[in-house]
Each structure stands twice: as structure tokens, then as C-alpha cells.
């Protein structure tokens, strides 16, 4: 089957129009690009920083017609080069690559860690106002929490979103409290209105939201889902985190999808550098059903380094 849709395999130079500091180490770079702007949630681009490297980056939402963004955490050489790009400077972008989330209806749980939140943000824009969405996000410390307000905004901005949950979220997303009394899962504010979206934050050091990791409170959230069982869980972030989430979901019989990260060179299924067991992550994925992943011997355990040698996470 010939791949369809609009894909650009040659890197095209685009100019960064806006830069947002999300945390001291995370920035969002906004630009205009019709093709990237109309990508599906979970797709990624190959982003070339001239003179430096080319890196895979999830495609982030941005307001404004034909606009898109990347949100990058400064880490090694390549990500730092991208992080340092300033407004008015150019990078070159090809893609979008990979599949996208199978966006179900109903009660959805989105769990992200760090820049793993990026594809989840675009996912939110593809849900319906009726869908009841919980976003669970983890960070090391309060300083490193980002996208919490954006997540609330996106939840309430869903077309025709009925329940005025924006203010509630605005005040509540930062507390990250949740109650599970009487088997009731309820989100902090005490509001009587049916909430169609909530954002829960955890930090390892407890400086913001719930102390601990997202995986620590996952069981509680899934167990006490007052509004009924979750219809689907979507996750993107460190693989060890995703591994736990997929196991939890499958224990509860909940449909789950996770987005994998691997070494990427071509992004289109030629070079093989992203192989994970039988899966060609850039093309078959990056998003896989939990059931499929649990059958993949490498998921949660190993990735391939630049030489293609399997390496433990």
C-alpha cells in the first residue's frame, strides 16, 4: 500500500517565528508550515539544525492557521542546538512521519512525562467535547512542570466544550489532588458540574501536585475511576514508565497505546536504525497498541545504539 497523505521527504527550511520558554530547559519553537500543521496526533518530524544534527521531534500544536511547533528539552548536542535556535533563525523540517493515535471516544487517560507530553497535546485537540479526559503529567520538580496550563486550555477549547471547566482547571490543575473516597474518583475542586477534563501533576520531590511519579498513582486513578472504566489510555515518555503503564492498563483490560522512541535516521522505514524487535518504529509506529508491545521482546528493555547494538535502557 502506497503511503498516502502529504509527506515531504526533503527537509524544507522554515523560520522560527516565536520561542516560548516552558521551563529553564524546555522551549517551544513556533513556525508556519502547512504540512506539519495538518499532521495527526503522535506524528513526528525530522528536524535539521543546520551545522548541527537532525533529530526526530514530535509535532506540537500551535495556535494560528498553518502553524506548528516543536517543544525541545535541552540535553545533548543536538537537542541543545535546537533549543538555542532563536526567533528569525531557520531550521529545516521533513515529515510528518509515523502513524498516529487511535483516538477513541469516552473516558480517556493521557499520561506523559517531559517532552512526551507533546504528542498528547495534539491528541487533546482531536478529542470531542463530550469525551472525559484526564491528563496525568509527571516532572522531577515544580520548575520542570510545563504544558499544565496549556493542557487545561486545550481541554476547554475543544469545540463546543460544554462545561466551563476552564476556570476550575485553571485553579485546580496545579494542585494535582485527587480523591477516591467511596470508590469515587473526583477531581479536587468540588465543583458539581460534570467535568470533562482534568489535569493532574506529579513531581518526584513533591514541590508541585502529588509527590511521586505518575506510575505511583496510576493504579489508584485507574482503580477508582468513578465515571466508569477508562475507555483508553495513551502514553508517551520514558520507556520504563510506559512499560508500567501498559502493564497496568492490560491488567485492567483497558485499551492502551504508547509512543516509542528509538534512534532514527531515515524516518521512513529504510535504514532500520529504529528497529525494536520486529517493529520498524518510525513507520509501523511510533504508536503501538499495548497488546502488541507486550509481545515485543525489546519493549521496556532494550534499544539499539548508533551501531545497531541492542542496549539496555
Amino acid at each position, binding site marked *: 500500500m502506497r503511503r498516502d497523505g502529504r509527506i515531504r521527504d526533503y527537509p524544507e527550511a522554515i523560520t522560527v517565528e516565536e520561542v516560548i520558554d516552558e521551563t529553564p530547559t524546555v522551549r517551544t519553537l513556533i513556525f508556519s508550515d502547512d504540512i506539519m500543521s495538518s499532521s495527526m496526533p503522535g506524528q513526528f518530524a525530522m528536524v535539521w539544525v*543546520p551545522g548541527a544534527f537532525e533529530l526526530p521531534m514530535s509535532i506540537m500544536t500551535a495556535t494560528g492557521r498553518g502553524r506548528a511547533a516543536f517543544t525541545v528539552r535541552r540535553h545533548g548536542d543536538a537537542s541543545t542546538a535546537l533549543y538555542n535556535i532563536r526567533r528569525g533563525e531557520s531550521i529545516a523540517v521533513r515529515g510528518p512521519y509515523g502513524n498516529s493515535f487511535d483516538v477513541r471516544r469516552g473516558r480517556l487517560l493521557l499520561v506523559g512525562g517531559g517532552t512526551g507530553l507533546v504528542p498528547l497535546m495534539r491528541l487533546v485537540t482531536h478529542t470531542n467535547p463530550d469525551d472525559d479526559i484526564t491528563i496525568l503529567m509527571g516532572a522531577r520538580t515544580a520548575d520542570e512542570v510545563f504544558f499544565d496550563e496549556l493542557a487545561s486550555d486545550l481541554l476547554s477549547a475543544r469545540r463546543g466544550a460544554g462545561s466551563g471547566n476552564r476556570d476550575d482547571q485553571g485553579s485546580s490543575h496545579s494542585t494535582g489532588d485527587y480523591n477516591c473516597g467511596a470508590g469515587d474518583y473526583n477531581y479536587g475542586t468540588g465543583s458539581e458540574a460534570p467535568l470533562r477534563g482534568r489535569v493532574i501533576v506529579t513531581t518526584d520531590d513533591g514541590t508541585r501536585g502529588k509527590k511521586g511519579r505518575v506510575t505511583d498513582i496510576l493504579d489508584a486513578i485507574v482503580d477508582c475511576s468513578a465515571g466508569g472504566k477508562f475507555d483508553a489510555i495513551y502514553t508517551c515518555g520514558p520507556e520504563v514508565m510506559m512499560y508500567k503503564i501498559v502493564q497496568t492498563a492490560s491488567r485492567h483490560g483497558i485499551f492502551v497505546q504508547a509512543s516509542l522512541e528509538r534512534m532514527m535516521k531515515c524516518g521512513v522505514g529504510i535504514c*532500520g536504525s529504529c528497529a525494536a524487535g520486529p517493529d520498524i518504529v518510525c513507520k509501523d509506529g511510533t504508536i503501538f497498541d499495548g497488546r502488541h508491545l507486550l509481545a515485543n521482546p525489546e519493549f521496556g528493555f532494550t534499544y539499539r545504539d548508533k*551501531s545497531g547494538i541492542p542496549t539496555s535502557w
Partner: protein
Amino acid sequence: MRLDGPVVLASGILGISLDVFRRLHRSGAGAVVTKSLSKSPWTGYANPTVIGLDNGGWLNAVGLSNPGAQNFADMIRPNREIPIIVSLVGSTAAEFEYMIDKFDECAVVAYELNMSCPHVAKVGLEVGDDPALVREIVGAAKQASGDSAPVLVKVGLGSSNYLDTVGAAIDGGADAITAINTIRSMAIDAELQRPVLSNRFGGLSGAPIKPIALRCVYEIASRFGDIPIMGCGGISNWKDAVEFILAGASAVQIGSVLGEEDVDIFGRINTGITEYMERKGIDRLQDMVGHAQRR
């Protein structure tokens, strides 16, 4: 040489995972050629290493990143069911011997000596352009593999006459020729005013090189008669495959097309060839090999 079908995975394409090989074999690959392996692991060049040209063409300078012969042999040792052709790259006869020894206990259906990679120093084309060295390496590889597996030599367009490379390979004892590898090329970005690939130069593959590859297969077949040829370069569908067979190839390899099609392309090309043969009343594939030479 055991092939389960005439359509083979080309070297460097998805060639580092045994699990992926299984999947491709199930999809109809008659054999798989591994990523070219070197004596020790290589990390290759920095990204950008592969870009598309949006016309069916691809440019790559992966830099022969690979886990090294030993690691790879360990990975494929359990395999018995899939016909695996091990691609090797190196500068000296000794390196090739060393690597072939590592595959002692593996079920390797053939070795393919990469004498044609156009963008890594001291190996590939730089070897292929030196007929004496080609003869020496092929001879050594033949000796090292003994009766265990035939030796293919993969050629490409370098800075000498590739037909001399083929001749030297045959002199050295090569059992078959793979033609062709990518063609040295480059991309420059007008806006950014610089070469796109980190290595500047890379190899062109995919649809654009098909007419060149087809000519090479035809020329090798008409010059060297009996030597079996694996045709490679820009094959995207059954018709392309048939053209290569008519030019003189006994089997074909596909690579870049996987950037645009799913892995079931192997099955579809197989089916296309079979239907073509039925339509034309050709019983055995062998009967159409080189048929266009006679016209």
C-alpha cells in the same frame, strides 16, 4: 545459492534485526542481505544521513553504521529458516577473512562483498576501483568461506570502469555479481546555503537510478555471459523487476521502495512476476533471464 524467491532485500535496508528479517521473509522476501558489516562496530555519520528527494529518489550517507561482524553473527546464529546473505565491507583481504570466520556457525546462504559504497573512505568503491585488490579480496573470501557459501561481489559506478571490477571479481572466483550500489551524489539547500547530508556526499538510490542500473545489468550480462547477476537499483514494482530479469538478472534486490511502500511489496512483486510469466507463457523464471539481450 538458496533463495526462496527472486525478490531479495538489499543491503543496508532494515538490515540489522533478525526479527525484522523474519517479517520480511514472511512478506515474500526470497532472501535478505544484511547491513554491510565491518570488523568492529561502526557508529556511522551524524544525521542528516538519509533524505528523500520527493521523486522516488533517496540520498543517504549513513556511513555504514553497523554492529560489527561478531555481534551480528551472535544475533543470527539461531536462524535456520531465513536465507540470509551477509554483506561485508572492509579494506583488506585479512579483514574479510576475519569476518567470514565469525559466521562459521551461522546458516549463511551467501556473502556479498560490498565494493561499491560511494561515501566511506578506504572501503566500498575505493576497493572496487582497484581491480588487483578486488581479485585478492575475492580470492581470500572464497577461500575463507570454502564450500559453505557462495561469494557475491556488489559493484557500482566509481571512478574506474566497473566492468573491470566485475572482471576482476570473476577472476578472483566470485560466484555472482550484485549491481548496482547507490551513485555518489549530493544535495545542497538553497535557503540554508550548505550541503544537507552531514557527510556532504552520499549515495543516490531509488527510481532515479533505475535506467542506469538496468544498463549495468545488461552490460555485465552481455560482457560476461554466464555469471549470475542480482539486479538492484530503483526497482519499485513487478514491471521494474521483470525489466531487470530481461536485461540479464537472475534475481533482484529492492531497497528504497520500502520508504514508500509497506513490506508486503515483496509479495506484490512476486505475484506480479508470476502473473506476467503466466500471461507470457513462460514456465521458469530462468527462461526469461537476459531475454532482452537477444532483441
